[in-house]
């Protein structure tokens, strides 16, 4: 594989660069020229005192002491670069040995890698990300696979720090919200299904935007899906109450429902209680890839989504292929991907160890886990397009205003280096040209067999036709308050147990 492209960036050293260019010379405002001749009673009086107030300070000659310091620094950096390249070689050799089943060789390579690590700064650059991969390889080689039991709430804690420290989750939220807001235009009853509620960080802004939209807010329902809480707690409910509180102060009629499930394929459409006439948005931020482990419930879940006939289905995923069957391939891909992510964390300057810990869990999962245990099965957008297309979903372009907003908002909260690009109606957020996250929006193909799409009007009944799986239709209810198995769902009879 190509070793020519070395994705790691070195932190800029101000000492070395000072004085090497003349850009600190202050620009001199030229004094206005005195007009020649005043026979037309028009005079132009120059005021040289004002403009020549500050003579430019010429740069002092570059002292040799600084030159020596700069040279030493450059040499150190070269050494580190060599050590870094060597370390990457070693890590990949180790991974190759693991794939070949040669435990002894892998251990030896790992020992060398650890030694190389000692020579590198692990505070930044290649060292910072390599330490996590070395650690992960170590676990894979020497630890028995156990599910790490972190204290409850750790997930949410780390997630929140990752959210704050870099722009990726924020980008996901406001891009998805933009698509949802636009899709809900003109709808009086709307229902958002969030595949992973967490602390509900995505929703306050949407609630506020809906509150102030022309024509007034709709009746908003949010269904938040998340893992079951430990006994004595109800995390979903807590978040729901908070969102309800916010909605009340924003004067938006609101209702929340929590659905606790360990995995998305446990969620059945009837649990979502989609009401006839309401516009549905399904929101998946970094959730779909978890469904790719055999026997891959992804298609069933996508069918379920399609059966809800959502007005919009927003999907944000990591833009990488960490689902390759070969271990070495997967390892290499992840090494380069997470180098870019850590690089960008570096550059944002705030240095969040918790955000790093969040990423480290992903790295560990990719490197150490296999089969059903491995959840972080990231796949690139091109493959998601195929899958979503097969499920009967068609792409909804995100639009130029989404791109413009994304660029502005990302640009504001992070330094140079991040960029938002648009391709085929999808947005990707990347670091120095390397795409890292992609956002896209989808909708179901219109219903076939001449059935009315219940979301086109407020009071339509759910029509029945031979295409249904034989479940009973609650044809006259126009709100979702019934507790029986109501079909707000067309053609999804085969999903019912």
């Amino acid at each position, binding site marked *: 594989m190509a070793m020519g492209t070395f994705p790691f960036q070195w932190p800029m050293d101000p000492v070395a660069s000072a004085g090497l260019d003349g850009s600190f010379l202050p620009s001199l405002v030229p004094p*206005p020229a005195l007009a020649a001749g005043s026979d*037309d*009673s*028009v*005079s*132009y*009086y120059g*005021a040289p005192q*004002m403009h020549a107030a500050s003579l430019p300070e010429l740069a002092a000659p570059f002292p040799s002491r600084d030159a020596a310091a700069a040279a030493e620094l450059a040499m150190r950096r070269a050494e580190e670069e060599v050590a870094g390249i060597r370390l990457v070689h070693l890590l990949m050799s180790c991974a190759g040995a693991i794939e070949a089943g040669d435990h002894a060789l892998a251990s030896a390579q790992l020992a060398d890698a650890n030694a190389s690590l000692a020579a590198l700064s692990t505070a930044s650059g290649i060292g910072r990300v390599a330490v996590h991969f070395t650690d992960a390889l170590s676990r894979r080689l020497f630890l028995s696979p156990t599910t790490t039991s972190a204290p409850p709430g750790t997930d949410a804690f780390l997630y929140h720090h990752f959210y*704050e420290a870099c722009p990726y989750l*924020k980008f996901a939220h*406001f891009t998805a*919200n*933009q698509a949802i807001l636009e899709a809900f235009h003109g709808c*009086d009853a709307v229902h958002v299904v969030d595949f992973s509620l967490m*602390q*509900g*960080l995505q929703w*306050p*802004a949407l609630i*506020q*935007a809906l*509150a*102030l939209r022309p*024509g*007034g807010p709709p009746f908003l329902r949010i269904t938040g899906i998340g893992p079951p*809480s430990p006994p004595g707690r*109800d995390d*979903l409910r*807590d978040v*729901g*109450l*908070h*969102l*309800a*509180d*916010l909605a*009340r*102060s*924003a*004067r938006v009629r*609101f*209702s*929340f*429902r*929590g*659905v*606790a499930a360990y995995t998305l394929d446990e969620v059945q459409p009837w649990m979502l209680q989609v009401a006839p006439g309401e516009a549905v948005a399904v929101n998946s931020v970094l959730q779909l890839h978890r469904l790719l482990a055999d026997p891959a419930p992804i298609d069933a879940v996508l069918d379920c989504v399609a059966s809800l006939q959502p007005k919009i289905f927003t999907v944000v995923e990591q833009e990488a292929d960490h689902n390759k069957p070969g271990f070495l391939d997967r390892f290499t891909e992840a090494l380069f991907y997470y180098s870019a992510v850590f690089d960008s964390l570096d550059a944002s300057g705030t240095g969040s160890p918790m955000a790093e810990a969040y990423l480290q869990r992903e790295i560990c999962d990719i490197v150490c886990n296999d089969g059903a245990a491995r959840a972080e099965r990231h796949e690139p957008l091109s493959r998601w397009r195929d899958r979503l297309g097969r499920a009967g979903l068609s792409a909804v372009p995100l639009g130029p205003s989404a791109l*413009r907003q994304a*660029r*502005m*908002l990302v*640009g*504001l*909260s*992070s*330094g*140079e280096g991040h*960029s*938002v690009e648009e391709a085929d109606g999808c947005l990707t957020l990347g670091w120095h040209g390397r795409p890292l996250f992609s956002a896209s929006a989808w909708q179901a193909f219109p219903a076939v067999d001449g059935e009315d799409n219940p979301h086109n009007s407020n009071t339509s009944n759910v029509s029945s036709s031979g295409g249904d799986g034989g479940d009973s239709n609650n044809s006259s209810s126009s709100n979702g308050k019934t507790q029986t198995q109501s079909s707000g769902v067309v053609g999804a009879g085969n999903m019912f147990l």
Partner: protein
Amino acid sequence: MMQFTHAAVTAPPLHPNGAHGLGLGLFLDVGAPRARPWPAGGFASTPPPLPTSSKISLGNLNSAGCMEQLLVHCANAIEANDATLTQQILWVLNNIAPADGDSNQRLTAAFLCALVTRASRTGACKAVTAAVAAAVESAALHVHRFTAVDLASFVDLTPWHRFGYMAANAAILDAVEGFPVVHVVDLSTTHCMQIPTLIDMLASRAEGPPILRLTVADVASCSSAPPPVLDMSYEELGAKLVNFARSRNVSMDFRVVPTSPADAFSSLVDQLRVQQLVLDGTEALVFNCHMLMHTVPDETAGSVSLAQSVSLRTMLLKSLRALEPALVVVAEEDADFTAGDVVGRLRAAFNFMWIPYDAVDTFLPKGSEQRRWYEAEVGWKVENVLAQEGVDRVERQEDRTRWGQRMRGAGFRPVAFGEEAAGEVRTMLNEHAAGWGMKREDDDLMLTWKGHNVVFASAWAPS
């Protein structure tokens, strides 16, 4: 194990968990009616209809109040370096205030741009990237470079400047009666658009026209010269004015002095001091100050003269007084943009700048080029007030009362405007939309829009 939870909207309030952006102060109580004297969308003769459908939220009627609150929240978030909250609010604002919406929305969009510009220069929000600059077009990009002809018709579109011109010209004519030589020093932002009318009035003086000297302050080369921008050299402009004067049998000479508000126009003042040494009492000196004096740093700008510990603004007025003018005319916007904190300035600016956005519907059609120029200039002002600091922030307006105190403090006494002058102004206002009005405040005249103070004109003589 399945669990279902349900939270209805009547749940008891939970203490917010303090996470960034999660509701701490983000949400507005949009139901409480605010004292907004003006409905969105222009000067309607009937009040807006009460909401009859449950679809319309009360929040909509007070949308301007909501937008102001959101902008305030945003400004606070920027000052607090809270990038997350800033982003969230900006996203909401972007969606509810499109740049091509109604007056309130366009007003809010301009403030949004200014805040984005501010955010990109400070704190957690890093240096302006090309993407940010491209995504939010700075108002400064659209400021138009006018030809003299275009500028003349542009300033006549609205009484904003005409009001001050008329009042000033009337007062000047009165003050220079009997003087064979009149020296007008023009400290204004509109590049002598007032002068042709003044020349006409002087030409038809009962006692015959005086010799007119016009000295113009040229601040165009300063870093933050306020718009409008004239696309013509002052030499050429001066030549045109001199020719025009000649055609009216007024002998005129024209001088331009490059000068800067940052040092209280010291180069101009120095020139004048030299000239005053050779006077023989036949010359009346008049200072015509329109919208430019507020660019001279006041006490809040932090800059003081080296000689004394007073602001440059105070120094300027003392210098003018020392030149023993026959008259000083001051026309300025009746607003206070000198608050040290950006939120204070934001509130002040929001509660003043709604006026041009509200009024523009009456005289410029949507989508017209001139409207873009007009709103670009307003946007420039908003951006200057909110996004700039230090020397670059030149829009440091003070209200009529404060200027009055300053003038009195510098040794001037007010000169009231005559009934004839007031009458002429009223007649002029009738040429414009019905919302414009005028009233007297003490010895000054005040231009109003829908009853709100806009621009005041005051005249002063040495006391």
